[in-house]
């Protein structure tokens, strides 16, 4: 059971990473980040079953942080859209040196 869960989590995480790396739309990248978080959550739950309740506690933390992050992140994306009329990250390079 543990192995399947970890395998599933790894697949999910890889999808998230590939999504972040390949997509240009900020919202999709944002959702891929969420995907990665949930992949990790899955691992935590799986391990909690084997090693004790601490993993589940972590899951709660991650969910809380993810919620907060979603709120802030979406707000930033909206602000960005208002300012630049786009959420395509290729067009946004304010940090260029």
């Amino acid at each position: 059971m543990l192995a399947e869960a970890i395998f599933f989590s790894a697949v999910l995480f890889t999808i998230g990473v590939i999504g972040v790396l390949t997509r240009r739309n900020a919202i999709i990248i944002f959702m891929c980040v969420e995907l990665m978080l949930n992949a990790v959550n899955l691992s935590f739950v799986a391990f909690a079953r084997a090693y004790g309740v601490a993993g589940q506690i972590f899951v709660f933390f991650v969910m809380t942080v993810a919620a907060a992050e979603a709120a802030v992140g979406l707000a930033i994306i909206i602000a960005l859209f208002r300012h630049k009329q786009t959420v395509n990250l290729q067009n946004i390079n304010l940090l260029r040196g």
Partner: protein
Amino acid sequence: MLLQHEVSAVGHPLAGTVAEWLWLLPLLPLLGFVINGLLSLVPATVLGPGDPDIAHGAEGAHGEAGHGVAVHAHDSADDHGAHGDDHHRVVRHRFAWLTSIVGPAVLAVAFGLAVAIFLAMRGVGEMSAPFVQRYFSWMPAGSLRIDAAFQLDQLSMVMILVITGVGTLIHLFSVGYMQDDPGYPRYFAYLNLFVAFMLVLVLGASYPVLFVGWEGVGLCSYLLIGFWFSEKANADAGKKAFIVNRIGDFGLLIAMFLLFANLGALDFVGVNEAATRLTFGGPLVTAICLFMFLGCTGKSAQIPLYIWLPDAMAGPTPVSALIHAATMVTAGVYLIARSSVLFSMAPVAGLTVTVIGALTAIFAATIGLKQWDIKKVLAYSTVSQLGYMFIGVGSGAYVAGIFHLVTHAFFKALLFLGSGSVIFAMHAAYHHTGSHEDAQDMRNMGGLSRYMRVTWVLMWIATLAIAGVPFFAGFFSKDEILGSVFLRARESTLADASWLGIPGSSVLYAAYALGLAAALLTAIYMTRMMLYTFHGPNRTGEKERDHLGEAPWIMTGPLVVLGVLSLFGGWLNLPALTSFLGPVGALDRWLEPVVGESARRVTSGVAPEPAHNVELALVGSAVAIALLGIIIAAVRLKPARLVPKAQAPEEHGIERVLANKYYVDEAYDRVVVEPTVGISRGVLWKGIDQGIIDSVFVNGSARLARGVASLGSWIQSGQVGTYAWVLVIGVLAVLGAFTIR
């Protein structure tokens, strides 16, 4: 009185007399300055339209009065722009009447007070110590204690009487001369302020207090020379006067520092006491005296710093009379007489003063020969006469120097005021016809004796006085100086010393010879001035001639008084030879407590009484020289052949060199001014400041930092995707590294 709580001279014979009111002397003119100064701001007190942001809309309509004046000012500056002379605009200030009262009145009262103090001094008889009044502590710092204190002794009394007396006359003259100028209250404010500072100069009980007056009169001179500041030449002249004077002041400052560092005192009483402990003729006292003399060359227009005085004639003529002839420029002579103890200890310094004085006397006199501007002639004559005074005080004949200072104040003030009266008439004539001719050029005058009899007669008196014709004031004083030098060349500490390897005695004989030569030239150029101005045919112009005329009584009145003084001024200090005229050596006896001891130190205690025949010979030669000069001028010069300035041919050869004042101004410009400005701009500012410090070090370090940073900055693409790739690759690399290991 609040100021008098710390008067220290309790036991002094003058304590409790009218001399206690000493402080009022400079305060009175200062009061005049305040009143006139406020009046001068009257048109300006219509303040601006409030704050610019509030009253933006009102900008066009602001201050009608100020507006009108400004426009007018501009127009009239254009009208008379070409004039090199006085009197630019004829607009009477609305408070001119008040200024006419306040301005001269404060001086008259001060003069009255001065006379009262003088009488009190006569009353107490012998007075060996100066009467010092401390008012408050000025600059206390560690062991330094400088008090705001005044000192009254016989020397300052003489100066006070001259300043307030001649000053009052010149103030009165100014009422007539200046009252139609729109800047009339400002003029009187400056003039009053000048007198206040001049009195501080002669009353100060210490070198720093003297220095207050010293720089203060310089300031007023600056303001008054540049009084008609809309002409660049006038403003330039004022600035030049101030800066050249500052060079001299540098010397005086160093002298003070040397005094304090070595004697620990800066007040006259303390310095005179400590000075006698110095090594006679030592390098220290010589250095002190030479630096002090540098100050004198600035203020009293001696070589090499005389250049500002001729330019100073840009100021109104009464100013030239008061500041640049009678009072301020003689401050250097006063300073040396005041420091006679120091100078008598330093024969080399004394000889230097004498040499510079003699050279200046002859040098300025030669320039005076070829000047066409009537005031320039008088200016060089002043420089030359100041040279005489320095010959006197330099050679230890302090009384003679001061004596010439006093008589010179009389006749030179008269000459300047007389020339002012001439210029006034000339200007009025040109003004009537709207002509732009030069009202100060003698080539445009001629035959003025027919139109202004009073001025003519009085100016002749002054001319004879300055030329040294017997029984006029200048005769006695100039004679005393030349005689003293001659006697000291034979027997004195100066004659025993050597100056740059030359025996002092030869130096003094040379100074005597130069003095005689200068006397000859003086007689020549003064006669020339009189002939060209008052005699021969008139060259003013057909239309203008009808408008020439004598000045009003308020101007001629003071002239008459000065004329009387120029006639009888010599009675102040009659030589033994003329004992039939009255009491002999009054000034000698009066100044004895102040300079007597120093004078005796110079003459090694031997009384400088010449043999009768020597004295007769000296006087005879001086008289002969004076008359010779007048005769040469009268015979050689032909006023009839002179043509007006506009048609005058160019001068050649030596004449041209003289007319251009030996090109000294140009030389100073090339050697001092231009290199200083050039180096400041080219090397210091553009080179060191902007080139090296700013470009190389400051901005260079910034460029270095930027260069290093640019290496790292190209990695920063700003693309989040790139960053994510780098992150993933990094994670994989780290994980891979762990796995492989």
